């Protein structure tokens, strides 16, 4: 299987007609008219309402579950609990997955599903939940990761032993110890003139998608399952559902709905296996739409972290060594993707001596799920604080300090990749040149900057391009469109085929209609699916040339394709009028069959992304309230396929980061129950909290992609909290080291700082 286009055909001088413009996205009309169907918007005849009973305890043994009274309530069609799921060994990947979907031996967090009901109405379903009797033996719980690492901490899983530690034979909450480094940090620090070492902590935040998970499952009498759901990963869901429910993949057909935001939070399933099991028992379609309370209590927040970061540099700004100790809180099961953090946290600086030790720790809170650049923004919050502090200590402009240490092509990263052409230097230079950075900081405000990196990803991807009899084109895509990938991919198809983008339409396939597609995550979709569709277009073009050759009675290599037309390759081929795609389709489809291209790849060649954020803030010294006055995102997109979409990614990521920086956190009571499971108490940024977000798109092409694209979804949130903290530090004289930087915390910082003076 190909992993990259043999010849990407990347040509920086090629005049592009469509790529780089901003046409109206084809799926937009459904979104502005209310037609777009999201997870909860599917209605089937005879459909039942599914509701989930959840544990009120953070940690408890489930001694018994009695569903008999609920089953007898008129209108109830199915009741399920752990007994309705196949037994799978605890501690395995599938064992974790099934236990997260439905508690087995223990309830491991407030909100953990313990039973579920399908009934003819919502009120009956809710009534039935009250009739289910669950007997718990409540256990001590632990939520804070540092507490969870202590020897006397309540243990979540008796079977857990720390991976990466020789001879670990005691039950523990530490899933893994992961060490990663290069060079010799002791020697590096010995060379340093200045060393800064700080400790940081960050709180879990929620992805905050506005659409709660919603799905409809139906099962036929012979056991074939159809699932409609809001997901970033239809194929991954299918394969995992197959594993935990013991159903062949060919009998599970998943159709993705429109997705009302995911940001990583819809890469793993929650109500879907429950809806399936209910529909199998009831033999009726079952819809489950989570409530916001359920979303907060039981779906994917990000990891909270503790970190210690130490960096040393010479007087001229050269960083000589960097060291970090990182602790990542996951939920009751592993899966935080925490190894991203040590790999990415310093990557963008050409460091020779780095040492990192990272721990992943289970705790009694919902299983964490991905969020833009999983686990990286939390630690960059610390790294970029230390970077700015060092720069100021040696009297260097913070961007110049970064330039001094910037990685360039040929640098071998800590995770083994050697960089190809990258745009970090250009990003920093663009930041220095932009109006925001050149404007003096207004009186009373503070300015902070911070930079970030994300690998960008490829992975398994499949797609098909079909040419219609009139020369218009349809695309069959599998990777979920989270923010406009359909239009960007349609634009690349149109560019290849030399036709207007309006002649292209993309549909989202169900899992029966295409081969495996990896999850939409890691900024891989426009890149990878774009690659697959370009490959498909090129295959279709080869076929078009063959057809034209047939019509002209010449050999196929005597035909070239240019700007939507097959033309004779040279004067001596003969004097033939160029044929458009539509003409060839009309003339040959009836006789020679459809013209299409299909491609599957395990895409490699993603180009790393870099960004730099600039923010001005004002802090109310009386209340600790922070006002974001001005914000600029500078980021290398490689090539912006659809400029407005790219800007939207930058802006959306930054504002999510503003929420994470200033307000968002999970508050747990002493009983381990979540105290703020609503949008009222979990405060995400609203329109009046933020200014316009300025954007600077840098374009240093990734030559391994035909149009040079990198991927832009993750980087925009990576530096945000660090940049804001740095700005606040300039305002109040002390740089915060703990998230969120909420008014009471900042006020304390301000008061403590004043007291010290």
């Amino acid at each position, binding site marked *: 299987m190909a992993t990259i286009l043999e010849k990407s055909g990347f040509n920086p001088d090629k005049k592009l007609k469509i790529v780089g413009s*901003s046409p*109206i*996205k084809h*799926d*937009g*009309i459904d*979104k*502005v*008219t*209310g*037609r*777009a*169907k*999201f997870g*909860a*918007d599917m*209605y089937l005849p005879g459909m039942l309402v599914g509701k989930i009973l959840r544990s009120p305890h953070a940690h408890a043994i489930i001694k018994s579950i009695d569903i008999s009274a609920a089953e007898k309530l*008129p*209108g109830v069609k199915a009741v399920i609990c752990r007994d309705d799921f196949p037994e799978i060994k605890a501690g395995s990947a599938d064992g974790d997955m099934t236990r997260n979907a439905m508690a087995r031996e223990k309830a491991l967090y407030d909100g953990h599903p313990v039973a579920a009901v399908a009934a003819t*109405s*919502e*009120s*009956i379903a809710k009534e039935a939940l009250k009739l289910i009797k669950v007997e718990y033996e409540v256990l001590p719980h632990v939520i804070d990761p540092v507490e969870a690492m202590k020897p006397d901490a309540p243990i979540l899983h008796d079977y857990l032993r720390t991976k990466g530690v020789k001879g670990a034979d005691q039950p523990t909450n530490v899933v893994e110890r992961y060490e990663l480094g290069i060079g010799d940090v002791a020697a590096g620090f010995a060379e340093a003139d200045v060393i800064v070492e700080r400790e940081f902590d960050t709180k879990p935040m929620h*992805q*905050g*998608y*506005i*659409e*709660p998970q919603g799905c409809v499952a139906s099962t036929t009498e012979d056991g074939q399952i159809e699932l409609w759901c809001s997901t970033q990963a239809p194929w991954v869901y299918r394969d995992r559902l197959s594993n935990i429910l013991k159903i062949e993949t060919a009998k599970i057909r998943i159709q993705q709905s*429109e997705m*009302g*935001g995911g*940001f990583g939070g819809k890469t793993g399933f929650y109500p879907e296996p429950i809806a399936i099991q209910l529909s199998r028992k009831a033999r009726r379609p079952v819809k489950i*739409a989570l*409530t*916001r309370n359920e979303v907060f209590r039981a779906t994917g927040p990000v990891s909270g972290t503790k970190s210690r970061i130490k960096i040393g540099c010479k007087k001229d700004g050269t960083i000589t060594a960097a060291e970090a100790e990182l602790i990542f809180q996951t939920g009751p099961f592993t899966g935080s993707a925490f190894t991203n953090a040590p790999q990415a946290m310093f990557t963008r600086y050409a460091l020779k001596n780095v040492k990192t030790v990272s721990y992943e720790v289970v705790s009694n809170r919902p299983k964490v799920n991905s969020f833009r650049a999983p686990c990286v923004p939390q630690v960059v919050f610390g790294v970029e604080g230390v970077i700015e502090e060092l720069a100021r200590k040696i009297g260097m402009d913070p961007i110049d300090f970064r330039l001094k240490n910037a990685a360039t092509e040929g640098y071998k990263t800590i995770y083994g990749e050697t960089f190809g052409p990258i745009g970090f230097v250009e990003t920093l230079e663009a930041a220095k040149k932009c109006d925001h950075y050149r404007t003096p900081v207004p009186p009373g405000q503070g300015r902070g900057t911070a930079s970030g990196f994300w690998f960008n990803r490829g992975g398994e991807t499949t797609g098909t391009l079909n040419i219609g009899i009139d020369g218009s084109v349809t695309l069959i895509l599998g990777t979920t469109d*989270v*923010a*406009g990938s359909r239009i960007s991919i349609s634009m690349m198809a149109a560019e290849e085929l030399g036709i207007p983008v309006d002649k292209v339409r993309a549909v989202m396939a169900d899992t029966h209609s295409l081969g495996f597609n990896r999850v939409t995550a890691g900024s891989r979709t426009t890149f990878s699916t774009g690659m697959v569709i370009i490959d498909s277009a090129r295959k279709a073009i080869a076929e078009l040339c063959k057809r034209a050759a047939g019509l002209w009675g010449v050999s196929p290599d005597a035909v070239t394709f240019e700007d939507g037309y097959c033309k004779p390759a040279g004067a001596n081929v003969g004097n033939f009028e160029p044929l458009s795609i539509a003409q060839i389709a009309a003339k040959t489809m009836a006789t020679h069959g459809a013209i299409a291209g299909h491609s599957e790849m395990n895409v490699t060649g993603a180009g790393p992304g870099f960004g730099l954020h600039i923010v001005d803030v004002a802090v109310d010294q009386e209340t600790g309230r922070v006002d974001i006055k001005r914000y600029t995102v500078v980021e290398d997109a490689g090539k912006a396929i659809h400029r*407005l*979409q790219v*800007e*939207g990614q930058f*802006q*959306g990521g*930054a*504002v*999510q980061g503003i929420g994470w920086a200033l307000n968002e956190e999970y508050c747990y009571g002493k009983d381990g129950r979540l105290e703020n499971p*609503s*949008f*009222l108490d979990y405060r*995400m*940024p*609203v*329109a*009046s*909290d*933020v200014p*316009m*977000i300025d954007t600077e798109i840098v374009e240093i092409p990734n030559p391994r992609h035909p149009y040079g694209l990198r991927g832009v979804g993750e980087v925009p949130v990576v530096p945000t909290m660090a940049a804001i903290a740095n700005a606040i530090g300039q305002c109040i004289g002390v740089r915060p080291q703990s998230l969120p930087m909420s008014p009471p915390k900042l006020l304390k910082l301000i008061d403590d700082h004043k007291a010290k003076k």
Partner: protein
Amino acid sequence: MSKKYHVTTTVNGDGYEYLCEAQQTLLDVLRDELQLAGTKEGCATGDCGACTVMVDGTMVCACLVLAVETDGAKVDTIEGMAQGDKLHPLQQKFLELNGSQCGICTPGILIAARALLARNPDPTETEIRYWLAGNLCRCTGYDKIIRSVQAAAKEMRGA
């Protein structure tokens, strides 16, 4: 079975009659009984604005209104915003300027923005931001939403 109540109402100019339970909200009924699923549920507690609709000309969160309260009322939802083939200028600008990313917040924001422009045809950026402060969007960072509303307002003023 809970007792059901008979409700007669007008939605987007069409007459409807339905039976609902006392605790069902207007949002529940619009979506689950009338299958007008363009109005979205993000929270059901009045905190996200995804369910914004007009009841007798007043902007409300449909999740905070009981369906029985709307007996005899005139309800307007996103499904009634375009006139035939003609999109409302707000819809058009949200398309052109990418005011909608995932789109889940879009119906509520469009209804709210239309209500704003009806009372204030020339709002400042700050006025737009405060008016829309009850409508959460997690995708866009609001920038392109505000610009779309500004552009639509300008066009509607004929400026």
